[in-house]
């Protein structure tokens, strides 16, 4: 597509999603021997494990009459049987037996999608399978590292995936959306730095010598019982294409050297987010909160997961309302603010990926 299309779609309201990329299809524990269905990038996918525990992802529509394979059962070591007329497919999506005939129609296959199990997630590649390089799975190593502990959940967000990315790339919204937990006015007052490198974007914000908001005060007291006083607070947002954002967040006792690199007098968390387009107007939003202190405390793991779940519920509500307003006002445009720099770089990167796939369409 042309450069003109690229610029005019910079604030595309419904951004298409690149297909030549890894997206999270599910948490590792969700996929079992019993097939499940999940729509990913507009396509229903049947997911199950083979007898050996390997992940299988097939188009959830039988070659014959498109009945959903996920309603069928796993058979043999790695196969799945269509619930309707009994065609059996192997883990590569190849028909291995057909009802009432001695041969197999050579075209009887369903698409099988490459998968990788990594960082407690099942990643799936919906585009050209010859490009599915496992080294391209976005970095979420905190999910499985010994130095971090935590857990997370999935939000079904009723909005285009890019709206979630926008939300996470600019945390000034915390002051307004999350005023009771992590919001504070210093957020919109403090300066931030945006850096783009290749398919990554980083937005860094430091707030010096401030009062810790309730969420962070609790965390400080978990590590430093009875803590009182001012803190230095940081938010370092790391985006990696197509849709993974890990946010390095924390506070440390004010003036103890955290901005210079000594975080020993503070608490540090990583908000891990990875967003999978479900349809053009809905997303699977997988998140977790990982921390590097009190690693053994299941209590803190659960408290943090539930606390963050509450915070993200506020985002979910806003995102859904935003998508509804976008759809209700098709003739209105998006305008951009200075705080959108991070999100705008994300769009730029996604648009160049879409252009490379020949799928970038000018904003309607």
């Amino acid at each position, binding site marked *: 597509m042309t450069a003109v299309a690229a610029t005019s779609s910079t604030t595309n309201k419904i951004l298409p999603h690149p297909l030549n990329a890894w997206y999270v299809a599910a948490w590792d524990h969700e996929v079992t021997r019993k097939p499940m269905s999940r729509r990913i990038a507009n396509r229903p996918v049947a997911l199950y494990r083979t007898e050996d525990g390997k992940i299988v992802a097939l188009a959830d529509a039988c070659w014959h009459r498109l009945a959903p394979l996920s309603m069928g059962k796993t058979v043999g070591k790695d196969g799945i049987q269509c619930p309707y007329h009994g065609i059996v497919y192997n883990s*590569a999506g190849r028909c291995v037996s057909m009802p009432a*005939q001695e041969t197999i129609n050579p075209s009887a296959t369903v698409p099988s999608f490459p998968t990788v199990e990594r960082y407690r997630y099942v990643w799936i590649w919906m585009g050209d399978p010859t490009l599915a390089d496992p080294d391209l799975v976005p970095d979420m190593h905190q999910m499985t590292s010994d130095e971090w502990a935590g857990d997370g959940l999935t939000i079904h967000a009723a909005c285009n995936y890019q709206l979630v990315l926008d939300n996470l790339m600019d945390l000034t919204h915390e002051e307004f959306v999350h005023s009771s937990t992590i919001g504070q006015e210093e957020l919109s007052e403090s300066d931030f730095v945006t850096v783009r490198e290749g398919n990554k974007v980083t937005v860094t914000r430091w707030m010096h010598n401030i009062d810790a908001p309730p969420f962070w005060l609790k965390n400080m007291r978990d590590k430093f019982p009875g803590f009182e006083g001012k803190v230095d607070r940081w938010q370092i947002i790391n985006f990696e294409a197509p849709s993974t954002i890990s946010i390095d967040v924390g506070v440390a006792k004010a003036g103890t050297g955290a901005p210079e690199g000594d975080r020993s007098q503070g608490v540090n968390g990583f908000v891990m987010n990875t967003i999978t387009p479900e349809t053009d107007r809905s997303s699977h939003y997988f998140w977790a909160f990982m921390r590097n202190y009190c690693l053994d405390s299941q209590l803190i793991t659960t408290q943090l997961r539930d606390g963050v779940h509450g915070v993200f519920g506020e985002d979910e509500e806003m995102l859904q309302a935003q998508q509804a307003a976008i759809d209700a006002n098709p003739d209105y445009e998006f305008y951009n603010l200075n705080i959108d720099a991070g999100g705008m770089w994300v769009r730029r990167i996604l648009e160049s990926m879409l252009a490379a796939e020949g799928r970038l369409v000018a904003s309607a």
Partner: protein
Amino acid sequence: MAATNIETWQSATVIETTPVADGIARIVLEPSLPLKAEPGSHIDLMVEIDGEPAKRSYSVVESSDDGTRLVISVMRAPLSRGGSIFMHGLAVGQRLEITQPLQNFPLRVGAQRYILLAGGIGITAIANMAAVLKRLKADYTLVYVGRSRGAMAYLGELAELHGERLQVHVDDEGSSLKVPELVGRADAGTELYMCGPIRLMDAVRRSWVERELDAPNLRYETFGNSGWYDPEEFIVRVPKLDLEVKVPQGRSMLEALEDAGAEMMFDCRKGECGLCEVRILELTGAIDHRDVFYSERQQRLSTKMNCCVSRAVTSATGSRADAVGPAVITIEPN
């Protein structure tokens, strides 16, 4: 990826046509709705035969990443009804109606080992697969067989690209392929993809079954026009419809029955689905089964045939010497 049979028609301009082997033309097309062609895909296009439009299929030998250039290669078919002759007569600048790439022969990424087998013009369906496997640094062997070097397209290019991985067998050089030996090299982790004359593919299928290899790991595409014997004229009788129809050399039994007004059931018209099956009541001569729907056992029984591709011949030995008049077959359609 899997089969795509949704036909999206578009126009395309011929931007190059060059001979690449005896009787084989390489034709470069520029489609109006470009879409990258996956390995194993083909396009359908409309040819003109005696002023009448007809549909033919051609595998995509290569395509540019953005799909704006599609390369096909067409062999001038012996006993052609005219499709391949029309294709050979194309001139640069001429426009054609073509579909976007269709897919019945997808390559699966991730097998431990691959054997690609191309017989003659079948190289068109295999060449792109080989190129992709090379790019993926997969473990593959490309076996290319033909009657004579002069009739084998792209030999030089393939040798350059695939080096040691290319094995060439040429009948008139006495280096014909030994099928059991080739299949003997396959193991449980091997996928074999082939496209070529039905005799070659039948031999591979037989070896594959004998060695008890997994059926789904043998992948093939039929061009739907080759048999064990040369096509002959034969007679079909359909008592139920009170019909007697002559099937000329250049027409299929299905077409001849349709021409005579019989309402026939069919889908693929290339011997894969079994929907055009008819029951054989009586036969003088033998059946040249050209389908891949029946097992060998069923083909030997010859109580039924798929009339889109299979034909009757006078002699099961293929030699015309002992032939007496045309074969006659009496059938009951489904």
